[in-house]
């Protein structure tokens, strides 16, 4: 309950805060609370994967890109003019989902049963081997694609940058 309230509050601040760095830090809180939810439902391995990948890697990546693209601060530069319509759509989605959930699952309870990491590993490598391999190829493709896209391409007209090799620099200076 507490985890849910804190996570919800942080998510709300994430989409309404005026400073992009604050938004990223609220994202950290939200993701940590989602990880806490996983712990509550006794999905231990998934909780640590969440903390490692999201809080550890993705948020750092997002912060780096925020620093690289200088982001202005202020409501008018961060939000566009459709804010009212967007709030309406969001509230509508929330109302519809709450109605559906209340209609279908009111009073149901989850019986907590700790899931050990060994069970997850067995399930992955027995039943889901092919998706696992496909997802690894996808990750490799995304990695190479990101490097190719973000690489600074050298224009042919510019003079080639003269690179001094690191090894042998001392000898050259000495001569």
């Amino acid at each position, binding site marked *: 309950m507490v985890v849910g309230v804190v996570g919800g509050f942080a998510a709300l601040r994430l989409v309404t805060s005026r400073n992009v760095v604050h938004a990223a830090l609220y994202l950290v809180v939200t993701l940590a609370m*989602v990880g806490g939810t996983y712990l509550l439902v006794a*999905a231990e391995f998934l909780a640590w994967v969440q903390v490692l990948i999201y809080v550890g890697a*993705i948020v750092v990546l997002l912060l780096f890109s925020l620093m690289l693209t200088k982001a202005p601060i202020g409501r008018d*530069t961060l939000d566009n003019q459709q804010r009212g319509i967007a709030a309406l759509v969001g509230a509508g989605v929330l109302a519809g989902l709450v109605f559906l959930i209340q209609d279908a*699952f009111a009073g149901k309870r989850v019986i907590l049963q700790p899931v050990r990491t060994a069970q997850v590993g067995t399930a*992955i490598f027995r039943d889901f081997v092919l998706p696992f391999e496909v997802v690894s190829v996808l990750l490799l493709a995304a*990695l190479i694609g*990101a490097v190719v896209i973000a690489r600074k391409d050298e224009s042919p007209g510019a003079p080639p940058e003269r690179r001094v090799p690191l090894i042998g620099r001392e000898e050259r200076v000495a001569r």
Partner: protein
Amino acid sequence: MSCLLAATIRLPFLLFFGAFLFSCGVYGVLARRNAVLVLMSIELMLNAVNVNLVAFSGYFRQLTGQIFALFVITVAAAEIGIGLAIIILIYRNRETINVDEISLLKW
């Protein structure tokens, strides 16, 4: 440990949490101008989906939901890598990452 084993949690709590995260993500995607913030909101929506998957995995006593959540996390990592690369490239070319000023493909 035995009391932990016997403990239950109400399913609608988890589902409401997921629904709230998803709505916040929808609002963020629709209302934000900064492309990095739009990506963050998309991450929020993916996390909402993961919360639902894990909740139902516990409810049905099956592991498939958790495995699926793992795959969703992996694909989200790939997506955010590509997305940030594209954003940085756009920033280098156009000096802005406001999604309403990047209208080259419109009309």
